[in-house]
């Protein structure tokens, strides 16, 4: 004999003979790994599960009846009043990322879900909060962003190899963000060193797609607009094949298969000549 019923309007459970639904729901809350607690509209804590004990370090006996602002770091005094204000209007607060203080004083990063609790007549009488410790997650995310930034920094150097000649070795694939940064660095370096020739070396580029080629062409055009000449070097057979197959027109661009050959072009543009010491070219 099972019968469907609704508790507090939302959670559907199956009603069975001799089965205490309220106790069952309470057990679910109690055993949750997330911190789950209830509070009044004034912000006083009414209930406190095991997850909350583990996360914040306070036992239920220590915390019940205290205001939630007790858990908030002193740097965020406006946060709780703002959340309570939204709850009173019947709004939910979802995936709100903030910081909380544990009993031992450690500050942890948490993601909060706060929703209003209504009585039978629909009046908002309090709120329930689910909090998840995202300290590790956040650290990982920050580490990833940091790593991405480092890669961005190390992979786009622009070097002056001769008076009036700069070399920009491309490494890896070029997304829009990297291409933009690369172009800015190259152009700034051209101005800084007053260089008439820029060698764009693509030896370290595994494959070229239409977008990468587009970025290359844009860079070459910008270099020309500034009054310098760009030479595309390190065009390996595979790259040459791809560029030809993609139908990318590099007719106006001086290209060479190696950086050394490119440097020769650069010296030519500058009317320089390298000769050996016994006077032969």
């Amino acid at each position: 004999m099972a019968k469907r019923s609704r508790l507090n309007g939302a959670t559907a459970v199956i009603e069975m003979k001799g089965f205490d639904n309220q106790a069952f729901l309470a057990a679910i809350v109690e055993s949750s790994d997330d911190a789950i607690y209830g509070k009044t509209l004034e912000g006083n804590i009414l209930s406190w599960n095991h997850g909350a004990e583990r996360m914040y370090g306070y036992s239920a006996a220590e915390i019940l009846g205290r205001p939630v602002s007790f858990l908030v770091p002193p740097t965020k005094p406006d946060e709780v009043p703002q959340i309570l204000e939204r709850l009173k209007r019947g709004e939910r607060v979802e995936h709100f990322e903030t910081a909380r203080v544990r009993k031992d004083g450690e500050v942890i990063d948490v993601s909060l879900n706060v929703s209003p609790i209504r009585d039978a007549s629909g009046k908002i009488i309090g709120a329930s909060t689910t909090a998840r410790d995202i300290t590790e997650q956040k650290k990982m995310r920050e580490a990833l962003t940091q790593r991405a930034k480092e890669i961005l920094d190390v992979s786009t150097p622009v070097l002056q190899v001769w008076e009036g000649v700069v070399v920009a070795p491309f490494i890896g694939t070029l997304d829009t963000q990297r291409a933009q940064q690369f172009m800015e660095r190259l152009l700034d370096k051209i101005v800084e060193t007053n260089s008439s020739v820029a060698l764009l070396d693509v030896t370290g580029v595994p494959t070229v797609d239409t977008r990468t080629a587009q970025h290359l062409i844009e860079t070459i055009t910008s270099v020309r607009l500034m009054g310098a000449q760009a030479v595309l070097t390190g065009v390996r057979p595979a790259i040459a094949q791809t560029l030809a197959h993609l139908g990318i027109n590099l007719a106006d661009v001086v290209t060479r298969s190696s950086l050394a050959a490119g440097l020769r072009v650069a010296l030519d543009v500058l009317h320089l000549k390298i000769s050996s010491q016994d006077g032969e070219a």
Partner: protein
Amino acid sequence: MTNQNISVVKVRDTLMVTMPADPDDMTVTTFQEEVLRAMEKYRPKGLVLDISVVETLDSFFARTITETSRMVALMGGQTVIAGMRPSVAITATQLGLTLGGTLTALTVDRALDLLTHPHPRRQRR
């Protein structure tokens, strides 16, 4: 609105024009007229357009530069654009304003080199 004055200076065989930081359409039009008037008057070999202080290059300005360099060529002169800033070059490229193959130079100095020694390799020896 003050009309930014454009002065076209003749130095030896060359006309020199410096564009203001943020030229409006009126200034750009004046630039073309003044340059052509000076071309007629002095019959110079070249025109150096210094845009090293220009911060924005809009499509009208870019088109006028291309047009003017063609007109100057028809009157027997060679135009060199000098000193475009990196940020301006990037924006211009992204907007597709490539100045139709007009000669460019990093600085006014280099522009003058280009005009006086169009084939320096041969001149050197």
